């Protein structure tokens, strides 16, 4: 598996449940060490970077992230500055400016005094995105940022991420919604059974054959007014479960 994320790009990691998308994302974020192979950032091995250095350059957004104490939104966003501060160092004016800018970019200013537990799903996603942006990372990795959001907030979140990429950030996101992936991502990597199935622009990767082979469904799709697709029916086929049985421990047959 060979994966590259570039700045100014919104890249989607897609694939069926259990394909290994989140695991791959955690490896890219340096939170898991791959059994073999390596992850590099600007040509330097990620593992060789110090914790703080890595955290300054790379932000990771957890799926369905929680905040354990009723801390105000403003303070949660300010936690994004953690990698820039020494244990006893107080936040400087610059730190506060970054926090403010991140809240502005994600439309969180009005929420600043609320606690995260009182927010709706869409608001929470924006706040946690602001937290990630407050550290001014070069790379933003987000694990299913649109999961459990209603339609309007899915679009809003994707627009925010698209905007980040357009401003030069390197964005890698795990996505389940292929319509959103087709519409917003520059490129996608399709994972299947823990292996890279194919990659490229969403249109080339997600063809009819791939849907049948990887997802086991027939889809209907169109491009007006925006790219859309919808599953029509499951296809009778050697089931996914059989395919997995055929390669114990993620064998070598799938590529």
């Amino acid at each position: 598996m060979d994966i590259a994320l570039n700045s100014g790009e919104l890249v989607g990691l897609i694939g069926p449940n259990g394909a290994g998308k989140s695991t791959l994302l955690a490896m890219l974020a340096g939170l898991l060490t791959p059994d073999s192979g390596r992850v590099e950032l600007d040509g330097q091995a990620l593992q060789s970077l110090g914790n703080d250095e890595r955290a300054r350059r790379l932000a990771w957004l957890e799926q369905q992230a929680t905040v354990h104490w009723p801390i105000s939104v403003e303070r949660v966003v300010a936690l994004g500055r953690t990698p820039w501060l020494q244990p006893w160092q107080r936040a400087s004016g610059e730190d506060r400016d970054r926090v403010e800018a991140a809240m502005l970019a994600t439309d969180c200013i009005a929420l600043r005094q609320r606690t995260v537990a009182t927010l709706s799903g869409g608001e929470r996603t924006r706040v946690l995105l602001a937290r990630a942006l407050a550290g001014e990372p070069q790379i933003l990795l987000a694990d299913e940022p649109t999961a459990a959001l209603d339609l309007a907030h899915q679009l809003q979140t994707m627009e925010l991420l698209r905007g980040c990429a357009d401003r030069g950030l390197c964005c890698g996101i795990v996505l389940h919604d292929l319509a959103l992936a087709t519409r917003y991502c520059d490129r996608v990597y399709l994972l299947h059974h823990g292996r890279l199935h194919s990659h490229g622009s969403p249109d080339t990767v997600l063809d009819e054959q791939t849907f049948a082979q990887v997802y086991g469904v027939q889809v209907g799709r169109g491009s007006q007014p925006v790219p859309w697709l919808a599953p029509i029916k499951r296809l009778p086929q050697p089931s996914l479960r059989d395919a997995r049985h055929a390669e114990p421990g993620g064998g070598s047959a799938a590529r």
Partner: protein
Amino acid sequence: MRDAPLITGLSLALLALAFVSVSLGSESIDLAAALSNLARDPQAIDAIILREIRLPRLLIGLLAGATLGLAGAAMQGLLRNPLASPGLIGSSSGAALGAVSVLYFGGQALHPQLLPIAGMGGALIATALVWALAGRSADITTLILAGVAVNAFATAALSLLLNLAPSPFAVRELVYWTLGDLSDRSMPDLWLMLPCTLIGWALLLGTGRSLDALSLGERTARSLGVHVARLRWRLFIGVALAVGAAVATTGMIGFIGLVVPHLLRPLVAHEPGRLLGVSALGGACLLVGADIGVRLIPGDTPLKVGVLTALVGAPFFIALILSARRRGTGIL
């Protein structure tokens, strides 16, 4: 600094309590004269009372209370659970076992400070055991389970000593010690507990920023550059050292580590990092205050301060549960 008013308030309260604490006693002394005599005429009776009896009592209470408050706040921050308490990781029951063993075998006769030394040894052994059981890269659950196991063993061994105690008087002495008390402590006791206490505090107080990040979950904290495994051990060792030293000197004093962080958390906007320092001050206030309380309550048998904190702490805890239930929220 955002917490300046709160810290000032707690410091003033502590100062007032300290003044009351050293003024109380069977002999009434002129505090100003006694203080000046400390330097001028160390053999004056009021200077001796102050130096040998009242100051050790005050200062040990202050250190132990601050330790319990701080350690409670740190454990609750680490576990992200308001019910965590410093006793969770085995060091306090280890300290109790060590000290009670010395009482049981009559080791006190050998050297007056053998009891707190053994207590601290017990705390360290218990901590080392938890470390060995859990392994270096242990997750929180394993760490807690190892702590529970060591706690259970230390409690069992304590019961065994009580069971085998040669006479009812010996049982009484052993049990009394575990109740938690600040009376009859001496300056050497204070010097003995000081190093471990200060090292423990230093380890704990520096973790504020990491604990803040940890409120976003362990993985997110790691993505923010926090070395979570190192943080865990740092807190663990800090709590073990400071709480071990406190329990070895005063016996088991419950509920301060649980209640103080709880009371103060809303005043620091629920931020675990800001809670550390104020909890230390609050713990010192509560223990020094409770120690004044036991001296003011009349009766033939003097009340142990650990009994008073538990008597006040348990109803407080019940009230906490009830108010959480009324609000329909969790115990947070």
